[in-house]
């Protein structure tokens, strides 16, 4: 399993395992995500999908296995280091900065790409001022990109649910990621909103960002993703293009139970 990182793979997980006491949440999962594709991770509730995300982004330390991102081994890195390298994420239960404006939420996302030092900020040096202006402009552009430009000055918590999901994506995009992890981005969406979300994912892809998403809704998954990995009880049970995975016997069993 000591594969050299090939350049066309942006993320490679090798035998990634995460154990909580006696619970094996992710059980030696290996997968490769190619640059510029939409990759989906599906599976029943409690299959370990979010745990896998958390292990990739540094919120959890994997018990064993390696995470190679863009040719660098990032296993066990801190969340802020992972973000700096170019992985951004959204959360299953939206985690915005509730009492900050939508604009400020996105500007926080820019934080990691800003250069102002303590002294620049203390004395509002021209360099800092210019950077702030630029960042505000970029943040507004991102808000318009996800379609909520008019809500810039509202508190994040006062936005409607669907716009909060969009704001979270805008905030993640602000970190200039190479890889964007979306944790159930369509949860609780109406069919119309789901269509709009799929369009947004296509637009993100067009920016050259690879998308790795967890999703329950089969229609969404089948519609936008090029490859799918299915997890069940922490184990990878299928890996391939949507048509293949849909017909896989183990996948059907995992979702519908074994037929008698």
């Amino acid at each position, binding site marked *: 399993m000591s594969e050299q990182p090939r350049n066309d793979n942006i993320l490679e997980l090798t035998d990634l395992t995460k154990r909580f006491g006696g619970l094996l949440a992710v059980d030696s999962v290996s997968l490769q995500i190619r640059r510029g594709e939409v990759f989906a991770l599906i599976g029943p509730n409690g299959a370990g999908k979010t745990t896998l995300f958390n292990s990739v982004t540094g919120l959890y330390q994997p018990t064993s296995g390696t995470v190679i991102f863009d040719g660098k081994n990032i296993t066990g890195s801190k969340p*802020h280091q992972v973000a700096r390298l170019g992985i951004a994420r959204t959360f299953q239960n939206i985690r915005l900065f509730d009492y900050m404006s939508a604009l400020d939420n996105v500007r926080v996302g820019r934080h990691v790409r800003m250069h102002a030092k303590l002294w620049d900020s203390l004395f509002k040096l021209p360099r800092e001022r210019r950077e702030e202006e630029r960042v505000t402009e970029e943040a507004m552009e991102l808000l318009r990109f996800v379609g909520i430009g008019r809500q810039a000055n509202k508190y994040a918590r006062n936005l409607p649910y669907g716009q909060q999901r969009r704001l979270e994506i805008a905030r993640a995009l602000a970190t200039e990621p190479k890889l964007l992890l979306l944790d159930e981005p369509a949860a609780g969406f109406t069919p119309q909103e789901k269509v709009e979300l799929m369009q947004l994912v296509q637009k993100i892809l067009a920016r050259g960002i690879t998308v790795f998403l967890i999703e329950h809704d089969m229609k969404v998954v089948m519609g936008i993703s090029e490859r799918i990995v299915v997890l069940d009880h922490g184990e990878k049970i299928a890996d391939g293009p949507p048509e293949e995975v849909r017909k896989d016997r183990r996948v059907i069993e995992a979702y519908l139970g074994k037929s008698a």
Partner: protein
Amino acid sequence: MSQPTAVAKRSSFWARLHLRERIKDRDTAIYGVLLIVALAWPMATYFVTGSSFLTAQASHAGYWVLLAIGLNVVVGFAGLLDLGYAAFFAIGAYCYALFASFQLASSPLHHAFHLPFWLMLFVGMFVAAAAGAILGFPTLRLRGDYLAIVTLGFGEIVPQLFLNLDNWTGGINAIGSIDQPSLPAWITGPWAGVDTIQIIPNFNFSFDPVAYYVLVLIMITAAVILVTNLYRSRLGRAWMAIREDEVAAAAMGINTVTTKLLAFAIGASFSGFAGAYYGASFGLVSPDSFLFVVSITVLVMVVLGGMGNIPGVIVGAIAIYFVLNNLLVALPSNVESVANAVGLGSLNKSSGDWPGLGGEVQRLQFLLYGLILVGMMLLRPQGLFPSRVREQELKHDAVVEEETVAEQVPAR
């Protein structure tokens, strides 16, 4: 209307000041009022009372304002509860006292230093900031209540250290006759009780209340500008993000440990600043001026003024200082004179267990202080002038409570 051109010309200058919008903005209005009062204070109080006593009091209130501004960075911006803030204040004060008095001559060092105040002001600041970072480094991984307990412990340890290292600090005997700041020139005038405006060469502060007042005013102004700049910067947003959701902030690439450390160090640096000023203006630094009650008083100022909002915190500091040092101190004699005026003068005499009305009020002083605080928090839980965020949070909590009540009712 008859001369539209003239009006237009005049308004072009005034319009550029945006005076009307600025007055409407609450915080700008508070700053404006505070600035006008602060500038007029020495002269006005001298003309009314014939002494500089009130100016001296204002200059003492000044270091509390500085402390409150500093603690606001830690508690209000970054959301870290610091119950040992007086420790950094003590470090700043001792830093100046040791290097600007005869104290070190009687220490194992046998050599007294007399470094200039202006240098020590910044040294005190950096030493306190370093102490903040040293305390912060191992403890900032803790959250919420646990951090509060550790800072509480630190706040207890530091005064004890200064008390017990008595061959260096003089212990309970305190450090006295601390050097006063001096300047090559100073200007004095009617505001300080001198008839004409004069320039004094080689000026030494030597407990001149007006000079200290001007000094602390400049320090506060600088602190307000610097802290406001920080609040509106990348770092300020990172603090807010950590306060709102630490996990999400980390996932956005914010190094939560160093960002919190910076909040701690910057907050501490302002109290180091205030400490050096305190050491000079009182000329005496003793370990019992930095007890737990100081930390709590500063915290009360921040909370009561409006956490996270700088002008609110300044007003809160002045208000609490006034309550503690004027209202409560003068209360017994005021109550006595009221009693005399309404014909209950007999109550003022002490007899047996009854200490007289004035004495009784004096005994109840801190009960009254507590009642004032409880009353304030019940009437205005968000503080006198809260930040908009805090206002929203409390409003929202109230709405949620109503909603949950409404949801529970049909279920039963």
